[in-house]
């Protein structure tokens, strides 16, 4: 029987599968917004993976890193969207 904390290492490996699936879309995407959608999905999955790592290794500071990563990736997504729109900004 696996411990409850080491279960989260399996969670991280399953999430890395999702990251690979989204990465295929980033590499293949026909247009630029497709790639942005893939990167946005990867960002959300990485945040959840950081929280899962924090539980698996019992380090609370990984979760603080996840919060900061969420806010910074939000800003970068908004900026790329603003760039794709064109025009003045």
């Amino acid at each position, binding site marked *: 029987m696996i411990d*409850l904390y080491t*279960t989260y290492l399996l*969670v991280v490996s*399953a*999430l890395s*599968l*999702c*990251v*690979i*699936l*989204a990465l*295929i*879309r980033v590499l293949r995407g026909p*247009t*630029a*917004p*497709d790639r*942005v*959608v*893939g990167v*946005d*999905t990867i960002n*959300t*999955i990485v*945040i*959840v993976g950081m*929280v*899962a790592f*924090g*539980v698996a290794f*019992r380090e*609370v500071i990984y*979760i*603080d890193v*996840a*919060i900061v990563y*969420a*806010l910074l*990736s*939000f800003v970068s*997504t*908004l900026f*790329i*969207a*603003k760039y*794709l*729109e*064109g025009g003045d900004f």
Partner: protein
Amino acid sequence: MIFDFVIYILIGIGIFFNVLAGVGLLRFPDVYTRLHAGTKCTTFGSIFLIGSVILIGLKMWWEKDTNGSVLAIHSTLALIAILLTNPVGAHAIARAAHRSGVQPAHAVIDELAQKPMEKTQKKDKKINQQKGGD
């Protein structure tokens, strides 16, 4: 024991929806439908995965471990950050895709490009201003 069972169920739901997001991102034909899969499914899966982490923190707190309360509160903050930023980012990407000229697959008409709502709203504003002036 029942507590652990609930946590395992939450982990299962979260992993299922996150994998579904990856598959939908690969299979859908279009930017807008890919955005639909990639954003909503990851948000829903993240709610359940981080919810299981919060439950673990509450369980540790119940067993007199002070790290548990810190774990629960900080993962709640991470969940709130995801819930606030993810829909806004998706809306910005969809708006940028439409304005940069990406059409939906198998689309026949583009109702947003015709902008019928904007004209009628302007007329309504003018009428309201005239009524207010009188």
